[in-house]
């Protein structure tokens, strides 16, 4: 039996190639950990099909490149024959008729879906506490949140219930939970990965990306997902293949550290860990220069107008006509309003109303249009910064994992968890969070951002840093 707590996907593939294990054994090992779900990572398991698929791959002469390594999928990605609820009551029991392109590509490459992971309802939240079904606990401290919205996918990898997983990131929903759970989380350039089958929250921001225990695993997983999908008009032809990073040095690399995100509002322990990483950048031959992203201060405000506006339209299709449960009523209006009023959770309703308001006649110019203009300024800030630096660094989250329930009463305090990640999303740039140390025994994430389509550079630099940092992603006491 393989020891899942010590395994990366790369290690698993090697063991499979060497005949030291089988896909069936791996799937059983991980499924056992998934079934004992003390972290609340999973909303649904697909044990039967996973085992069948593992046996199928084990029997193949020509094995697909991922050789039957299992994966966990955020419940916001459509999976044919496997419930996809977005952690919402409005999709309770919903079983899609098709599979998201990115999942399909991974399955074709030989990945095996173990199940669907918990999340904030419709990916709206930063703690996974907005799930309509269950709480997910941080494997580093069960009283704390795993971050969100992809908290289940992050916790599953941190708790070694899967060697890697897929999350989605709209304003930080991969990077922030990766930071809080001490793993690697990567949001690709907007357009890199098809959104077909990703249940939309904010279409102009949503991206699918990997969680993993190593930068190389994240790069490897992403390499099978990128590229034009004829079903997603906003997906792009991928310029260069993603390569597995090997860099150990950062010679000649100029890293800009965002001064606005290293001051007030950032926990001292977080700042210290990021500062230590910057010292390592220089030790590895790179240069660290302070940079300013003046408009990023407006990131949260901009994001919390644009994302709700798009979500208000995206979530309008959940009307209880073609799928999902509904509240039966005699009039159409009652049926719509009662179905949606009862089956959406409070945060989703809050954002739908905020977004509807921002788009409404009389307010559009002052809110939505203005936010889109500020978005232009944020895009320009990054463009200016990248004239002088190769990568931009900051903390991923201003704090380490907070306690369950600590921020649920105050939406604005929850929104601030995304302060470092949101501007990057608005600019559509690739960004990775790697664990860079501990603060009070809890992981701290370092966020690195590159220009559009600089994924390879981003992976190379984070791999070099990861090696130098030497963080152990397995939470203490996990077995």
């Amino acid at each position: 039996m393989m020891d899942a707590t010590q395994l990366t996907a790369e290690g698993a593939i090697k063991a499979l190639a060497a005949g030291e294990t089988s896909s069936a054994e791996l799937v059983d090992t991980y499924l056992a950990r998934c079934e004992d779900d003390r972290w609340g990572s999973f909303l649904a398991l697909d044990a039967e099909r996973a085992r069948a698929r593992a046996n199928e791959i084990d029997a193949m002469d020509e094995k697909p490149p991922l050789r039957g390594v299992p994966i966990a999928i955020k419940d916001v990605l459509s999976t044919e024959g496997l419930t996809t609820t977005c952690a919402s009551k409005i999709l309770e029991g919903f079983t899609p008729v098709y599979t998201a392109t990115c999942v399909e590509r991974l399955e074709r490459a030989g990945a095996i879906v173990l199940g669907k992971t918990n999340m904030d309802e419709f990916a709206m939240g930063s703690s996974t506490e907005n799930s309509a079904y269950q709480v997910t606990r941080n494997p580093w401290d069960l009283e704390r949140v795993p971050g969100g919205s992809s908290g289940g996918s992050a916790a599953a990898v941190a708790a070694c219930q899967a060697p890697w997983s897929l999350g989605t990131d709209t304003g930080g929903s991969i990077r922030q939970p990766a930071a809080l759970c001490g793993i690697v989380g990567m949001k690709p350039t907007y357009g890199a990965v098809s959104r077909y089958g990703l249940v939309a929250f904010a279409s102009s921001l949503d991206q699918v990306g990997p969680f993993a225990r190593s930068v190389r695993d994240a790069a490897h997983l992403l390499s099978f997902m990128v590229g034009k999908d004829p079903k997603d008009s906003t997906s792009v032809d991928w310029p260069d293949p993603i390569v597995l990073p090997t860099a150990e040095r950062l010679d000649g690399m100029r890293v800009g550290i965002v001064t606005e995100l290293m001051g007030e509002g950032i926990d001292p322990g977080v700042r210290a860990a990021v500062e230590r990483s910057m010292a390592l950048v220089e030790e590895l031959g790179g240069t660290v220069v302070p940079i300013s992203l003046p408009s990023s201060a407006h990131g949260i405000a901009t994001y919390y107008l644009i994302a709700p506006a798009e979500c208000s339209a995206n979530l309008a299709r959940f009307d209880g006509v073609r799928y999902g449960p509904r509240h039966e009523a005699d009039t159409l209006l009652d049926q719509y309003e009662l179905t949606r009023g009862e089956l959406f959770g409070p945060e989703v309703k809050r954002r739908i109303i905020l977004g509807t308001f921002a788009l409404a006649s009389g307010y559009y110019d002052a809110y939505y249009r203005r936010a889109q203009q500020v978005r232009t300024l944020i895009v320009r800030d990054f463009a200016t910064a990248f004239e002088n630096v190769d990568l931009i660094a900051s903390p991923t989250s201003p704090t380490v994992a907070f306690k369950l329930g600590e921020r649920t009463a105050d939406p604005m305090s929850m929104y601030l968890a995304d302060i470092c990640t949101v501007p990057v999303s608005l600019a559509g740039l690739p960004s990775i969070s790697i664990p860079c140390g501990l603060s009070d025994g809890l992981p701290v994430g370092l966020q690195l951002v590159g220009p559009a389509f600089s994924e390879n550079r981003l992976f190379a630099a984070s791999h070099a840093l990861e090696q130098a940092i030497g963080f152990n992603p397995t939470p203490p006491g996990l077995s």
Partner: protein
Amino acid sequence: MSDAKYEAVIGIEIHVQLATRTKMFCGCELSFGDPPNTHTCPVCLAHPGALPVTNAEAIRLGIMAGLALGCDIAPESTFHRKNYFYPDLPKAYQISQFDEPLCIGGSFTYLQEEGPQVVGITRVHLEEDAAKLQHLSASGRRAGAEQSAVDFNRGGTPLAEIVTEPDIRTAQQAADFLKQLRGTLREIGISDCNMEEGSMRADANVSIRPVGSTELGTKTELKNMNSFTFLRRGVEAEIARQIAIVEAGDRVVQETLHFDPVTEQLHPLRSKEESHDYRYFPEPDLVPVAPDPAWVAELRDAMPEGPVARRVRYEAMGLTFEDAEVLTESRELSDYFEATAAQADAKQAANWIRGDLRALLSERGEEPWQGHVTPTRLAQLITLVDSGALSRANAREVVLPAILESDKDPQAIVDEQGLGAIGDGDELRSIVQTAIDDNPKQAEQLRGGQDKLLGFFVGQVMKATGGRADAKAVNELIRELLGS
């Protein structure tokens, strides 16, 4: 209009179903009359996570419509989401175009007996159609509750919406405009414009104002009039209704109305208390459309002459307003006429096609371009008659039906059946003389000035020749031989 104190100001919005094979944003095949919900997919059912991808052919047809209407094709246009809840709109937003439509600012000239009229075209934009709702009978599952069923086959059908300036003044003009516009759109092949199947629908914006005023009154919108007659009657009824309101000292209320063609009554279509706020915003799932100007220029150059332009040309060829109107009803008929007119007199050709040929064919349910009467044969027939070699009566009653039956040239039929006209030669002269000799009394009366007896003698000669005599020549001979 009934009351000369007022004039109506009418603008029309036309929804045209584009002649694509598949839907606007997904690959489902378009169908009409198939079982419900058999042409759907995750995209047009708005399943979670599905995304739209624009149909290239819909863009091409939209541009063709714009070019035919003299519009500028926008260098870059975008799609927007138009948000409202309705069971026939699965995403609860319609992907449409808003402030950056595909085509902008053209005009359309339509013909009236008194002369050509120009209607400004504000824009042509693309959007997706809604699905179909059907009322269910009372046997629904929920006791007492009335229900509807949704069929998403039609949902997502590509539409072009053509919006005119308020340049139309009467209900008849509105109907004439729409009819001629339809001819143009069919001609360039962007739509079959079948109003019965809903592939062309018209809404009219109607207001009235005192004659001489340039201000616009409060307008009402008449929805979905699915025939030219209904459009005319609906607008007529609405103008009368508005005049009555104003005459009574009240004000017209802005609202949307439905014209019931059976009762000829207008009913408000939406409840007034429900305010509409469509919250348009740019569709983030789609990228801008920026047609290559060289390609647009190619399409423009390849644009066929429209039926209206053809009508103008036909009138210049000596045809009447009505001739030109009828002969441009379809491209096929136009082509048939032109091929005939290239080989024979145009006015004669028009007369034959509109008259004898159509009358003959309509009994058989055929169209002129379908049978054996090819343009060349018709032209030959006309020439035979023109030259006096075949009498009109024989041409009409014998030769034309014979071509249709036997698939032979007119000359061959004339020869076979010995229908060659007896010209003004000796043979005809002696036949006429015989007729005079046999009817001395009538000859005397004709000589005495009773001209109506000319017909009697022509009849006698025709009887004697089996209709082969040329009536004109017979006339002349009678007068000559009677010395009158």
